[in-house]
């Protein structure tokens, strides 16, 4: 009888130890979670992306292609309008320059000095003209079965 009790006692203690270990484990994980993922004690900020992160050749915050001249473009061009306006467009050197002149004349853009060439070179290199012909073909068709 006593042996059985002893056996029971030993099993009981082991369960106790295991539970204690698991419990401690949870506390440790919880503490780590609070440290790494807890509320930040900074001013209101929604950005979760590193503002200068480059991934697969793209500057993630703006979506612009990472290349020579990118920082100059960001500093001068993204203050007023979104980078999406740039990304949508494809133009030649003359048209990009004409666009800059129009922005300076009518939209409050400041003189760019030497930066203008840097900016236009970036744009013509990374967002060049595409040949479309008189009517582009249909592209990016998402095929699906039409059930009646």
């Amino acid at each position, binding site marked *: 009888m006593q042996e059985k009790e002893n056996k029971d006692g030993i099993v009981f203690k082991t369960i106790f130890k295991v539970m204690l270990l698991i419990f401690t484990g949870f506390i440790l994980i919880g503490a780590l979670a609070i440290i790494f993922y807890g*509320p*930040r*004690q*900074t*001013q*209101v*900020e*929604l*950005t*979760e*992306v590193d*503002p200068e992160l480059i991934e697969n050749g793209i500057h993630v915050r703006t979506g612009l292609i990472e290349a020579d001249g990118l920082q100059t473009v960001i500093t001068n061009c993204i203050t*007023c*309008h*979104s980078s*999406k*306006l740039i990304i*949508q*467009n*494809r*133009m*030649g050197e003359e*048209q990009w320059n004409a*666009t800059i002149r*129009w922005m300076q004349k*009518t*939209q*409050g853009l400041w003189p760019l000095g030497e930066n203008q060439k840097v900016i236009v070179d970036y744009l013509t290199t990374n967002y060049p*003209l*595409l*040949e*479309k*012909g*008189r*009517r*582009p073909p*249909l592209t990016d*068709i*998402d*095929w*699906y*079965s*039409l059930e*009646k």
Partner: protein
Amino acid sequence: MKRRSFVAKSGLGTLATLLGVDIVYKELMPKGYTPLALQETDPFKLFNKDEAMVVLNDKPWNMEAQAHLLNDRVTPNKYMFVRNNGLLPEKIDESSWELKIDGESVVESKTYSLSDLKTKFKHHTYQLTLECGGNGRSEFNPPAKGNQWTIGAVSSAEWTGIRLKDVLADAGIKDDAVYIGYHAADMHLSRNPTKEPISRGVPMSKALQEETLLAFSMNGEAIPLVHGFPLRLICGGWPASTSGKWLNTISIRNKVHDGAKMEGSSYRVPCETVAPGETVADEDMCIIESMPVKSLITYPKSGAIIKEGKSLKINGHAWAGELEINSMEYSIDYGTSWKPASIEKAKNRLAWQHFNATVNFPKKGYYEIWARATDSNENKQPMVLPGWNPKGYLNNACHRIAIKVV
């Protein structure tokens, strides 16, 4: 572009901007707390737009529909395209909102509150087609700069308001009146308070039409903020930039209005046709007025695969600025042969017209259904791009969808 989370660096200043109010007790906000309102910079939530709408730009906000989203006879808000030249107005107080009628050719300048307008003048409701002048720009070659709309910058919602002509008559129109010009509460991208993002207008003949409204409701409800709350102009059938949003002034001019985006090449095409890529002087550019004939196949969505032997019902809408649609046809052989589609009468002048047809395919294969509308001047949509112009306006080439018969 699929829906993405629009995560942005924001401060309480931006929050004030979005809400249009001061943030009371902002000093008491706990550090690290994200105000509820700031948590939303997602335009789909901000503007109640369907997730399949395409965002072209987020500063300023520009979004378009896809053809299959525009199948409703009357366009609901969730599928209505968003077009902005500037930033949305920061402070809107309906109770103190005023509309001033002024200008060289007003008999006596007058100011109205919103409740003045709603109580003194008779209300009218019309279904009115608004299309961006640059709808279709993406196809031009050489390309034109600006938002690269494909086909989705068009809508035909029901607008309720008072007739502009009734208000102008109340203030009095001098004999030398030529044009009206609107001024609004939106802000220039540069935040320079002396610059207007847009201030356009229309000739008196358009201003005095029965369907030209000062609108306060869209589809029976208050106009959504992004579409011009609390008061906007609706000039159906003309480039939608004439339908000014967030109006605070209408000026009766004794000359063509010369506000922002009236001058230069804005909303103008060459007075005389030019070759693709030509440079055109500003003085050789003419203002766009009535939009050209155009149509859209809104059902089925492009890319449908159907079984051989089955016929396919298609439907869509057609519109033609000030004109009406005379006939509608479709082709499955790239314009070699055309078959008629049935076209309904418009609900009222300047509403789009619905069409439908049952299409049969001779055998298996890849097909494109091209749709072509003819207006009441017997002018048809071109199959290739129409005349090139420097700003890429007025692409009314036929819409087509892809079909596979298996």
